């Protein structure tokens, strides 16, 4: 039973990274913008957070990570919203730059060790049978992520501001004709999304992996992108999907732990193969995807005045 609880907790841990990034990307995409720079923003956030955490409390480090992600996203937004550049190419540029930059700037950090985190918040929580690990003993950011998912759900579907965001993603031309501030909405969505991706990266470097190496996120940004499509752009589904994916990622370690005799490299393919499978499953029904997808996703919007 404890083993199951442990597996659950490690899935949630791994899933939180994906969920944070995917929620940020979801807001992006609801506003009609695809940000392929997710991986780059996560890496940058992770590096910034790690560097900060060496000398400052982890709360500040998380803020630094989010800030770094937001900064990079702002650069992306300047190009895509301000100048109307191609979203996909610009996002790719962001990832390539982020990967290169973090490899460069992070070289000196590779050997540096972080101080251990005080976990959990309250002593003795982990001793609670089953629920200690499965529900109560997480890092605070895990709970924040779950709350965030709920909050975004309310925001997007119940509030007027969220409606404006969705309108900008559905038809920026119509929104513009109605006088809604499409460009500003998109800019804000992009920066917010970038902050979340940076935060996700921070979680990876500080909590999940607890170290820094080049290419630390190993494709989680891309998986998060797939996740938003898989979850048809709904926050609650993103959260569940992320935990599921986290489970798949963890599965390989658990199988190894149980002595299942599959070579480690091959097992390591499982998250990526799972992502492909999920993409295939969700994309098969094109009509359904198109109904749920923000209609202007990926298309440039240049208001002509």
């Amino acid at each position, binding site marked *: 039973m404890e083993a199951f609880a442990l597996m659950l907790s490690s899935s949630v841990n791994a899933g939180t990274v994906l969920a944070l990034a995917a929620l940020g990307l979801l807001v992006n995409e609801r506003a009609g913008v695809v940000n392929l720079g997710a991986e780059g923003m996560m890496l940058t956030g992770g590096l910034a957070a790690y560097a900060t955490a060496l000398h400052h409390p982890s709360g500040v480090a998380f803020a630094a990570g989010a800030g770094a992600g937001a900064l990079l996203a702002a650069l992306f937004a300047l190009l895509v919203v301000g100048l109307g550049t191609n979203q996909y190419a610009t996002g790719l540029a962001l990832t390539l730059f982020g990967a290169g930059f973090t490899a460069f700037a992070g070289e000196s950090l590779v050997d540096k060790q972080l101080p251990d985190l005080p976990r959990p918040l309250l002593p003795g929580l982990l001793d609670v049978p089953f629920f200690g690990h499965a529900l109560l003993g997480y890092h605070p950011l895990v709970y924040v992520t779950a709350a965030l998912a709920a909050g975004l759900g309310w925001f997007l579907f119940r509030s007027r501001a969220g409606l*404006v965001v969705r*309108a900008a993603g*559905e038809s920026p031309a*119509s*929104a513009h004709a109605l*006088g809604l501030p499409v460009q500003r909405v998109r800019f804000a969505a992009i920066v917010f999304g970038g902050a979340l991706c940076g935060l996700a990266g921070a979680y990876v470097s500080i909590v999940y992996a607890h170290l820094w190496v080049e290419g630390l996120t190993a494709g989680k940004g891309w998986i998060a992108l797939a996740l938003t499509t898989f979850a048809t752009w709904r926050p609650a589904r993103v959260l569940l999907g992320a935990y599921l994916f986290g489970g798949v990622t963890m599965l390989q370690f658990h199988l190894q732990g149980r002595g299942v005799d599959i070579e480690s490299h091959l097992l390591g393919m499982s998250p990526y193969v799972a992502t492909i499978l999920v993409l295939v499953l969700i994309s098969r029904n094109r009509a359904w995807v*198109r109904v749920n997808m923000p*209609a202007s996703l990926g298309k440039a919007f240049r208001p002509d005045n």
Partner: protein
Amino acid sequence: MNATPPRLELHGISKRYGTLLANDGVALTVMPGEIHGVLGENGAGKSTLMKIIYGAVHPDAGEVRWDGRAVRVASPREARALGIAMVFQHFALFDALTVTENVWLGLDAALSRTEVQARVAAVAAEFGLEIAGDRLVFDLSVGERQRVEILRALLTKPRLLILDEPTSVLTPQAAERLFAMLRRLAEAGCSILYISHKLDEVRALCTRATVLRGGRVTGVVAPATESAHSLSELMLGAAPAAVARSAGATSADSAPALEVRGLSLARRERFGVALEDVHLEVRAGEILGVAGISGSGQGELLGALSGEDPRAPAGTVWVLGRDLSRAPARERRALGLCTVPEERMGRGAVPALSLAANTLLTRREPIARAGFLRWGTARRLAERLIERFGVRARGAEAVAASLSGGNLQKFIVGREIDAAPRVLVVAQPTWGLDVGAAAQIRGELTALAASGVAVLVVSEDLDELFEIATDLVVMARGRLSPRIPVREARIAQIGQWMSGDFPARAAPAAGTGGASGVEGIDGVGAEVIARG
């Protein structure tokens, strides 16, 4: 004397886009409670003027006065605050959102969703525009969508309502209901700006009208006192030349060149229309006009004819006696069926490519053996088309995007006519074109039919069809009405058919059933004609 100031006054409004002077010193005056028409053909500058009034565009020069005070309308939000509301020609709606949400977005307020819902219901009831608030817009028909647009405008309690070509998506009967609503609005004190290029509508509805041509005001008149002829002259500079109608089929007994038998097709797009048991025939020398409001299934029918939609069941599409239902586009062209799609840019031609390259979309002359291209041949072909059809372009190397709408359409239609087809299917041949280009293209189509080609014209412009077609059918909700020669057709009846109210097609005769079936249709038909 305290005369009521005009609700809206424009003086000397000018706006330039690059080399194009869209508005040149335009003046406009609308009194409170007046229905004021803005008349002009495509490209006369009506849309630009409306955008200026609505705050979406800033004029280069000129003054705007509201209730006698000078104002600067800097954004749609400010326009709404003043009390100006706009119903767009191309709806500013969000398909994936509900009716209530769409309306809510058009209101600046800190109203809550439930408040908006209640108000929508109230106004809808008052003006007879019922629509359920929680329906998703993409489920709505075009007429229903316009209702949402109008509701949204009405909820802002406008003092000036601008309508941009509202009847282009309505049947004649629905247009009448719209006019009734507008008259009531005007009686309640709201001023109305009614933009249109349709003379009879403006004459029926508007107390006064400003006529635009080439960005300038050519006259301010009381339309009811003007004749169609005088209004045309103000709009166009001269009465348009009449187009010689095609004589009709060269031989009534000959086999049809294009035949569609029992075509039923499930809908493919999110807002598509399913085709139901479509039958039609076009003989050499005929022009069959397919009328219908936008979204009745014309696009789907055209897709099945051109080969863009490969799903037509075998045995449904016949060209010159051959079953081409499943044939790819290339094969259809080789066998003499050419098509002109309704979108020029991005479908009939590629905007970023040269005219020479664009010939390669449907012509095969420049393709050499082993798939290599002979660009010289393509250039010469483009040059020939430019000359033969009077296309104003810088040459074969000119990029398609650099041509005006009229010239590009001349090129595209010309490209297909020049391919010497036996059957030509054309969609919206003169949509958005200036009168000169429209007249030329209609002339080309009638000449083509006269030379023995079977022509099918799909158009939302009834006037156009009445001008060039020999026979008419109406498409509504994926079904095709009975066929009627143009000289026997009446607008009222066609209008009724356009809303779907026509008798079902009789099943092919089986013994004595055939005769009674035809009788049945005649019986109903006579009733319909009598009512119309």
